[in-house]
């Protein structure tokens, strides 16, 4: 296998961005094709990684470790690698980003800056999913902040300033808490090791925290505090109620492509971080707070769904549905069963495709109707049948129609929560029942919205709207196709994540 393939993958978007920097801004089509070409190359590389990924071993693959800089008592390493948890998310990232760049062909203003920002963003997101050193993880996590601020602030809708700054301050706060927690984790880990050969390595810290001999330093209170702080940090990104208020603004004001990336990938960084670092280093504490996680998961599902139900703006509705769907991730994690955790990871991936598709459809329809207000639309299936059809399909996937990916992930998460051991969550079944009610609400708001937009009386002014352009088929078919593929043949995904899930769970048991 190609050595350092992950580093190459990280460098591809940056190289593309630098290349675009040298091209005069008037050559918009050259810039567009270069950017899309770059992302396709990254996609191909990640498919190669997917193909070469060994599904039978638990450890980290394609790992690479280079000392980066030395602070005397502490070495900061460039340490990367992937396992069954990060592999699907890596592919999701390149895939959704590539399709979102196709979707942003409608951007006419300041094309050069847009594509440079998007490619830098891509590097940041890929970096988060491959980093195995907490310092590096944080660097990449923060790297996503700046381009996203620009994308929302420059190409966003009416209230873009407010949305951009809210995004900046909220996620900045999340990053701040994350950084404090990382350093505190490092510090307590290092203390347990008497400050010998310490680093920010997730693998190393997981071993130190798992060693019972270190319990005099890593007391239960310390561990609990660290886990809760981590949880808050990632909860802002995921987002978990009550830290979700940045999301509706950011998603609604962002241009279509950015909404796709925000909902499709950036939110997943929160869930990924929670599993990789929260459960990876502090599995016992994750189990200890399982009830809390489950409660918040249920609150997310119900609260997100109720708010989605009352939205009059289609894009806001989709944004709130994201909050609701992220609740399922929490619920799956909280169950600490094999299927539950699988469901959580499935949901991260599946929601990545579905929410990106939904946002794309909303964007494409808005481009034609110039309105996102649900009540002003109606009968769109008559004038733009293909777009309306795909939107309906996306909504069905989001509701969890069997045969599509949303169904698989919800099913797994629910099997998980119903089978959760009473030692970890008391009254797990009750959580399952309440969350199930939330799923009914999902069907309610989505179907109701679809009924009001795609069916019914067609407004005169919407007749004769142009239907899907050839290039719009690429994101639509790509995203829907993968959702369908996972829905029909979930093995393609579970094959990769299964062994890692078992490995994670074995740490909680032991």
């Amino acid at each position, binding site marked *: 296998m190609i050595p350092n393939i992950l580093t190459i993958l990280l460098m591809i978007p940056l190289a593309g961005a630098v290349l675009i920097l040298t091209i005069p801004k008037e050559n918009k089509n050259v810039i567009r094709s270069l950017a899309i070409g770059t992302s396709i190359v990254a996609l191909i590389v990640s498919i190669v990684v997917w193909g070469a990924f060994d599904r039978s071993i638990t450890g980290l693959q394609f790992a690479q470790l280079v000392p*980066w*800089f*030395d*602070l*005397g*008592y*502490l070495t900061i390493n460039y340490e990367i690698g992937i396992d069954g948890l990060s592999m699907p998310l890596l592919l999701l990232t390149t895939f959704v980003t590539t399709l979102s760049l196709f979707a942003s062909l409608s951007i006419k203003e300041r094309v050069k*800056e847009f594509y440079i920002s998007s490619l830098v963003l891509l590097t940041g997101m890929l970096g988060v999913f491959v980093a195995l050193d907490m*310092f590096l993880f*944080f*660097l*990449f996590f*923060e*790297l996503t*902040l*700046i381009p996203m*601020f*620009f994308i929302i*602030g*420059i190409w966003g809708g009416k209230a*873009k*300033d407010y949305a*951009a*700054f809210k995004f*900046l*301050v909220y996620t*900045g*706060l999340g990053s*701040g*808490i994350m*950084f*404090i927690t990382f*350093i*505190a984790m*490092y*510090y307590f880990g*290092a203390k347990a090791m008497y400050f010998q050969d310490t680093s920010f390595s997730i693998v190393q810290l997981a071993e130190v925290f798992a060693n019972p001999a270190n319990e005099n330093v890593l007391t239960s209170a310390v561990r609990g505090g660290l886990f809760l702080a981590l949880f808050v940090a990632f909860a802002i990104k995921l987002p978990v109620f009550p830290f979700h208020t940045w999301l509706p603004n950011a998603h609604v004001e962002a241009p279509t492509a950015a909404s796709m990336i925000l909902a499709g990938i950036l939110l997943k960084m929160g869930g990924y971080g929670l599993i990789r670092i929260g459960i990876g280093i502090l599995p016992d504490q994750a189990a200890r707070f399982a009830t809390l996680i489950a409660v918040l998961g249920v609150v997310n599902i119900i609260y997100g769904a109720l708010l989605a139900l009352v939205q009059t703006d289609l894009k806001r509705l989709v944004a709130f549905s994201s909050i609701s769907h992220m609740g399922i991730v929490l619920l799956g994690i909280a169950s600490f069963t094999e299927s539950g955790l699988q469901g959580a990871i499935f949901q991260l991936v599946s929601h990545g495709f579905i929410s990106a598709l939904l946002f794309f459809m909303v964007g494409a329809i808005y481009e034609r109707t110039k309105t996102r207000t649900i009540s002003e639309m109606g009968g769109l299936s008559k004038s733009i049948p293909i777009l309306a059809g795909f939107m309906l399909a996306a909504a069905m996937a989001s509701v969890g129609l069997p045969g599509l990916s949303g169904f698989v992930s919800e099913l797994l998460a629910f099997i998980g929560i119903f089978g959760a051991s009473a030692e970890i969550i008391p009254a797990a079944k009750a959580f399952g029942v309440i969350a199930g009610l939330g799923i009914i609400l999902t069907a309610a708001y989505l179907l109701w919205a679809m009924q009001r937009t795609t069916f019914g009386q067609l407004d005169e002014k919407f007749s004769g709207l142009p239907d899907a352009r050839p290039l719009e088929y690429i994101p639509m078919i790509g995203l829907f196709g993968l959702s369908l593929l996972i829905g029909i043949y979930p093995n393609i995904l579970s094959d990769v994540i299964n062994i890692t899930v078992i490995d994670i769970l074995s740490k909680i048991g032991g």
Partner: protein
Amino acid sequence: MSAFDANWSLMTPEIVLAALALLIFTIDFMTGIREKKPYLGRLSILALLVSAFLVLFMNGEGGAIADIFIVDTFSTVFKIILLLAVAMVIAISMHYLDKNDDVYQGEFYSLMLFATLGAMLMVSSADFVTLFIGLELLSISSYCLAGFKKHQRKSTEAAIKYIILGGTASAFILYGMSFLYGLTGTTSVVEIGKSIPALYADYPYIITMSMLFMLAGFGFKISAVPFHMWAPDVYEGSPTPVTAFLSVVSKLAAFALVIRVFFVAFWSISEEWTFLFATIAALTMISGNFIALTQKNVKRLMAYSGIAQAGYLLVPLAVSANYAPMAVNTIVFYSVAYVLMTAGAFAVISYVTEESHSEEMNSFAGLYRRSPFMAIAMTVFLVSLAGLPFTAGFVGKAQIFIGAVTGELLWLAVIMILTSIISFYYYFGFIKQMYMREPKANDANLKVPAGLSAVITIALALTIILGVLPGILTNFFMEVSHWMF
């Protein structure tokens, strides 16, 4: 040992700089005072570079002149930082002076060089008398520079305020020094450091008083809260390059002084002052960042941002008691980062505010359209000041932060992070102006003059290089066995 036996060659860089400054002074007199004299600016930069070269290569081993003037790794590193910072400031000034006819050119350069000389003396001196002379040379030259636009009310006001408050601060420092002299009978920092442990048992209050007086005086110079009130007014009124000088050179020289005095003279009673520094650092970070939020004037904003940055730099002093070399490493790294990002930012600010004849935030509106290079460079400087990844500022701040957590000052670390996040808001306010606002109709595209663009390019390149490969500096620190004698 008589004065003639001393190893005067240790002072070569200072002597050469003084000679060249006098030369510039003389040339200025001989050529009439009212002309534009860009060649003097070039000569000044040359003088600074020669001096930096001498600092670097003259005294490999280091040494001391009778414990009064010390050349060690610490002073060498700080002198290099200061000299290069002043060279950047002068490059900024050359453009500024070219645009402003009401400023006497020659005096400007020679005063700046004398101020630099004072700063160099400060970082090398280990005696209260030399130290005070260096400090006053720096301060008095700065007072003059602050009032250089003498036909402008604000500039004169700035100079008067600065002189009165600065004089008071100097008096505080002297008063504090006099206590120690009275107790120990010596002005040598090293000797005082040796005798304090024994004396502290008998005279704890006098020594504490002396320390507090000095702390207040030094706090003024580094613009730490609650001694910071002068900074916004003086920064606003001074000519922009002088503002850059004050926020970079004066501040860092004073930091070097604080480290020298507290790490040598007061080292044995460090548990008495670490908490003081922690408190001051916390206050400084909080007030600097919060007040900066409300500022509309760019230079005032930079003043508060500079106060906040001083707060970050104070944090390592608060945790220094655990491991002093680490604190010095951290401060030096952040000082380098601070020089690069602040000087770079001031280069852009000086140019933009001069071109638009306005010092309001909205003079940056649409800068990206008018000059993409400057807008991108400014973005990097601001992102670095805010402490976001892949910039020197981030690595520096992360080191300070790791130090604070490792030193078990978690509360201070938390304040540092939270106030940094607040700073996003105003730093990104600039970015909003540059990218998300349209330029005013009559604003033409900007052409960046060569000198300024050199400063900006160097600062930009180094900010990113140190952010991506911090090992360049940190590996050097690993080799330093001891910073001070």
